[in-house]
Structure formats: structure tokens, C-alpha cells
């Protein structure tokens, strides 16, 4: 049995095309049933996110299976195959396993290391399990992919650093102010990025928000959104000393906060440090503010630089993740190939023979002065019994080998008779989260 992957992602298709090919989670039952009803397709899982649409399936006929799934995607979404095909990629066998492990570990994501994709695959797999379109192989395959993703997340620092400007601002503030739980944010003006950053600060535990704006109504509205306090714009400097974190993005044509102001404010705060972020163009806060002791001013460019550095770090960590994936592919592939018929028959035979021999030796050892003739006959007798016993299951296996669901038999046999297989690692069969 072979695993195949067919799909498209942000790397191969525009968002318009991805939208057209997306599957709605509410209506996923029918496509899943249609998918496994295709000739030669045994099991199937459909993963559909805003960045990728992928189908994982098992088949005996790699080329045919891939072609049928491509056709299925085109037909289902009523797009001509000619338009769709150039954007589709397909993988089989080891490459397919690698692809899915990489996707689940967020190595193929637009932002490498972002954590959402794993949850999305888990949900997609949940549907496939619910509608029984996935079976022994894909079940095990996806659980393996989840455990690989978990290993990657815990053993590398791929997701440990901030890769958005707003998050970078929070991280930076923590490096100055330490714990944010007793810190107050002051929002000057109402840029989108400022609001986003303020939200991040609140989520990271900041105590409260003050909002000021040239139009007071606007400040009030925003303050209400945040559960904060609106401050009239001309009273800014009466309140600034209460802020530990200042986010500024007004449309003012010149600086509204200068080094002299900040010096006063910092003194009033008994030199407790202040963290400024200036998002406005032209600037709201004079760059000389950074020269004031215990005041730290950062611009969007500084934050962008942090984000770039963190992304570079993620890419370095991604190399470690690839090594982990390499190890895991080997293990999984061993299990997958153990599901083939011939090795199973061989293993089954040697298991029976092993038992036969052990029992025979036990009997002979306790049986003195046995004539050699009798010894030969006992040998022949036991062999005949095992052969007879094995005849029917062997024939059934060979017959099933020509049909579709061989893995069912093989897996059952291996478990019933405790045959050696390629998987020593523990089964993680429950879905986390």
C-alpha cells in the first residue's frame, strides 16, 4: 500500500485559486465519501486551510491514484483540470510521508513555526475519522505526524520567538519592564498597529490602558473597547507619568513628545523605566528621547529588525527539525512496508515453526530411549500439522493481496500472533487538544 499526497498551497497557488479549491468543514462529509469511492483509493483525508488544500490517500496504484485525485479536485470544484493542474503538487511513498510531517511541523508554512497548522490538520483528521474515510494506515500515519510535530516543537526552538511586530513589541517591553502585570499602557492616536499592540499587551497581562486622541470621542470609544480610560489630548503630560508603555501613532505633522518632556516625566516617576514605541510617520516622538536615562524608544524599524532576526533563527531551527523528521520517516516507513503480504507470510510461518520446534524439543528431552524412527515420525507429524494449519490463512492472505484491503488482514495477523513488525514505538492513538 502506498501513501500519496495531492494538493496546492501558498507556494504554488494564488489566494483566489486556493479559495476556489477550499472545502467547507460543514460540507466535508460528501467529498470524503466521494474520495474513498474513487477507484483504487482506499483511505482519504482532506486538509483545507486558507493557505493549503491537500488530500492524503492510500492506494495500490500510485500514478492512477494521483491522477484520479487531481480529477476529483477539479470536478468537485468545477474547475477545468488544465487550469488547476499546473498549481498542484503530488508526492508518493517516502516523499509523501516527508511532506505531511513537514506540514504538520509547520516547516512548510508561510510563517515557519506558526502553531495553527497542526490544529487544522487535527481537525481535518477528526472529520475523516468521524466519516470513516481514514483507516489503519492513515490513522497511524497522521498520529505519527502529530507526534513528530510535537517532538519538533519541544526539541527545537522553532516557535519560541516573536515573528510579528506587535509580539516583538511585547517581548521587548518585557526585557525592560520585566513582569507586565502591574504596568499600564498609554495609547496616543489610533493606528491599527497600535491597537493591535495594545491588545497583545493586555493579553500578556498588562494592568490597564489609557487612550488619548485629538478627537476625544474617538479616545472614549477606543477606551471603552479596551475597558480603559480616555484622557483628553491636551492633558497628555498630566497623565503620561502613569504610563509604563507608550504606543504612539498620531497624524501630527511634528513631534508631540520631546526629550525635555520625557525627562520631566521620568523624574516624576522616580526614574522607573519607560518604554516608547513610535509607529507614526512622520514621527511623534523625538529620537532624542532615547538619550534620556531610563527611557527607551523604539521605532517600527527596530521591531521589524527583531522580527527578521527571529525569522532567521526559526530557519536555523528548521534544519534541526528536518533531522528529526528524517529519523521518524525511517521508522514509519518500516511499519508501512511491514504491512505487505510476503513478509507477513514469512513471519507467520517462522512463528509457527518456532513454536513447533520448541514444543517438540521439550517432549523429546523428557523421553528417554526413543527409537530414531519415532523421532523422525514425530518431526514429520508436527510439520504436517503446522502446514495444514497455515494453509488456509496463507491462501486467504494471497487472495486478499490481489484485492484492496490487505492491510486489514496483515495488521490483524500481526497483532494476533505477535509478529515482529517495524513499530516498536508506542502508539499515541488519542487525539490531543
Amino acid at each position, binding site marked *: 500500500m502506498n501513501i500519496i499526497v495531492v494538493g496546492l498551497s501558498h507556494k504554488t497557488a494564488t489566494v483566489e485559486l486556493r479559495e476556489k479549491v477550499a472545502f467547507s468543514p460543514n460540507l466535508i462529509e460528501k467529498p470524503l465519501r466521494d474520495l474513498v469511492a474513487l477507484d483504487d483509493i482506499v483511505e482519504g483525508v482532506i486538509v483545507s486551510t486558507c493557505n493549503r488544500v491537500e488530500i492524503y490517500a492510500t492506494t495500490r496504484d500510485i500514478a492512477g491514484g494521483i491522477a484520479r485525485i487531481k480529477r476529483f479536485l477539479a470536478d468537485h470544484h468545477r474547475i477545468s483540470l488544465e487550469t488547476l493542474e499546473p498549481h498542484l503538487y503530488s508526492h508518493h511513498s517516502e516523499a509523501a510521508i516527508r511532506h505531511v510531517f513537514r506540514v504538520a511541523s509547520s516547516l512548510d508554512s508561510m510563517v515557519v513555526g506558526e502553531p495553527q497548522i497542526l490544529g487544522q490538520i487535527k481537525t481535518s483528521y477528526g472529520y475523516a475519522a468521524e466519516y470513516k474515510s481514514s483507516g489503519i494506515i492513515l490513522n497511524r500515519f497522521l498520529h505519527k505526524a502529530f507526534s513528530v510535530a510535537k517532538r519538533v516543537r519541544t526539541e527545537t526552538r522553532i516557535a519560541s520567538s516573536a515573528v510579528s511586530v506587535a509580539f516583538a513589541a511585547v517581548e521587548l517591553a518585557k*526585557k525592560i519592564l*520585566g513582569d507586565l502585570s502591574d504596568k499600564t499602557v498609554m495609547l496616543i492616536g489610533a493606528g491599527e498597529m497600535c491597537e493591535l499592540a495594545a491588545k497583545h499587551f493586555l493579553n500578556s497581562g498588562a494592568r490597564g490602558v489609557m487612550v488619548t486622541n485629538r478627537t476625544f470621542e474617538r479616545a472614549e470609544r477606543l477606551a471603552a473597547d479596551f475597558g480603559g480610560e480616555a484622557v483628553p489630548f491636551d492633558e497628555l503630560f498630566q497623565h503620561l507619568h502613569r504610563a509604563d508603555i507608550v504606543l504612539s501613532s498620531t497624524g501630527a505633522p511634528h513631534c508631540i513628545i520631546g526629550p525635555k518632556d520625557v525627562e520631566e516625566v521620568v523624574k516624576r516617576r522616580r526614574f522607573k523605566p519607560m518604554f516608547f514605541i513610535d509607529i507614526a510617520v512622520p514621527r511623534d516622538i523625538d529620537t532624542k528621547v532615547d538619550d534620556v*536615562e531610563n527611557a527607551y524608544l523604539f521605532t517600527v524599524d527596530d521591531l521589524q529588525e527583531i522580527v527578521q532576526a527571529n525569522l532567521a533563527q526559526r530557519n536555523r531551527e528548521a534544519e534541526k527539525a528536518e533531522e528529526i523528521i528524517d529519523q521518524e520517516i525511517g521508522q514509519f516507513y518500516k511499519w508501512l512496508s511491514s504491512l505487505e503480504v510476503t513478509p507477513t507470510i514469512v513471519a507467520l510461518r517462522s512463528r509457527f515453526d518456532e513454536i513447533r520446534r520448541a514444543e517438540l524439543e521439550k517432549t523429546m528431552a523428557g523421553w528417554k530411549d526413543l527409537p530414531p524412527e519415532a523421532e523422525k515420525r514425530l518431526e514429520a507429524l508436527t510439520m504436517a500439522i503446522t502446514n495444514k494449519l497455515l494453509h488456509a490463512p496463507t491462501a486467504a492472505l494471497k487472495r486478499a493481496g490481489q484485492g484492496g484491503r490487505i492491510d486489514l488482514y496483515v495488521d490483524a495477523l500481526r497483532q494476533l500472533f505477535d509478529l515482529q513488525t517495524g513499530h516498536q514505538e508506542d502508539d499515541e492513538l488519542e487525539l490531543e487538544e
Partner: protein
Amino acid sequence: MTHLFFYLTLVLYGCATTAYLACLFRTSDWLTRWASRLLAAGCISHGLSTIHLASQAGHLPLTNMQESLSFFSLLIVATFLLFERRYKVTTLGSFVTPVALVMLILASALHGEVRQLPPILQSNWFWFHALLAFISYAAFAIAFGVAVMYLIQRHFLKAKHFGGLFQKLPSLETLDEISYRSLAVGFPLLTFAIISGAIWSEQAVGSYWVWDPKQTWSLITWFIYAALLHGRLTIGWRGKRAAILSIIGFIVLLITFLGMKHSITW
């Protein structure tokens, strides 16, 4: 026995210091754990060595420079281990353990002359004075390490240089907090040490204050730390100014300790 444990301590401190320095450049839980374990093992060995020496001499081993340096080093390590437990700041170890190691190496290089306890030291006030002084020194050594870290971290923030070391160092606020705590422990101890020293001086030479270099420099050290704490509590001095003052304080303290041994006693 003493020598065996002393050299074992040297080896363990050496390994721990190397591990703590490596922690600055590599992120590894394993490395962090072992740095701390090695240092704790060194500290125990150092403690045993000191106790053995003390039990042989019949008093605290503080009667010559070699013993004093070793004792100083022991207290720095013990104090750091306490702070590390409390604040989870591995990087502080990268700045403090080298100081302890250098002191111990100096101690091992010095000739440890066996000497009779001079009669002048046979006073409880002396031992009280010495013990308090050394504990306060250890606290100031921590404040010194933290101050150096503060200045480095502040430099990174002002220069907008966000490299690996920046990520490793704790936040300015944490550093400031540890600095304040260690000063708040060190300063009262130093004050009592100076007072008990004066009482002992009265017993020994008949005058509370004789203006010998050791006493003078101790007083200078005291004034620096007094100014630092006063500034902090009244005006709210913190950050760069406090860090620089804390570094100056420790340098003066080292001068007092290393340079001024020709005082009324030795």
C-alpha cells in the same frame, strides 16, 4: 584533608565557571542544570574544606590573606546559589562565578603560612566583625555582578542590538530588583561589621577609631553604599547611575580588602 577538598573545590569551580560561561552562548537545559550542580558540589566541598581547617585551628580561618580569600569566595558562591534559587537567573552565574574562581586561584597561589593566632585577634568581637564583613562583601559581589549585567543589557537596548546575549540576559527590572535586594542585605551587615570592628579596636588598642588605612577605606566603602541606598530610597535612583555606583563601591571594597591588609591587626 583540607588540601584534598580545596583542590577538589578548585576543579569543581573551574568546571562550573566554564559551564556558566558556556550558558551565555548556548541554550540548553542540560547545561544550565549541570552548571548549577557542579557549583553546588564545589560549594559543599569548599564548605568541608573550610570546616576542617577551622576545626584544626580552633577558630574561623580568616587569619591570613589565603584563608580570607578562600572564605570570601565560599560566601560569594553560597550567596549566589541562594539568589539563583530565588530568581532563576542562570546568567548571573556567568558573571559571579568567575569572580569566585579567580579569588580561589589567588588563594591557592598565596603561601599559606602557618601562624599562631595573635593575641590581638583573640576577641569575640573580632570574629563577629569578620563574619559580618564577609557576608556583606558577598552580597556586594552579587550586586556588582548584577550591575555589570545591567550596563550590558542597557547598552544592547540603547544601541538596538538584539543578539543572542540580549535574549539571554534578564530584564532590566529583574536586575534592578536583585541589585536592590543584595544591597539591602549587604549594607546593614556592613554597618554592623564596622561598628563591631570599632568595638574590637577599642578592646585591642584602646580606641574606637584610629584612622588606619583599613578603617578609612572601610568608611569610604560604607559612604558609597550609603549614598547609593539613600539615593535609591529618597530620589528613586536606579538604572545606570545605581549600577555604576555599585561597581565603584565593589572596586573600593576590593581595595579595602586586598590592599589594606597592613592595618592594626596584620
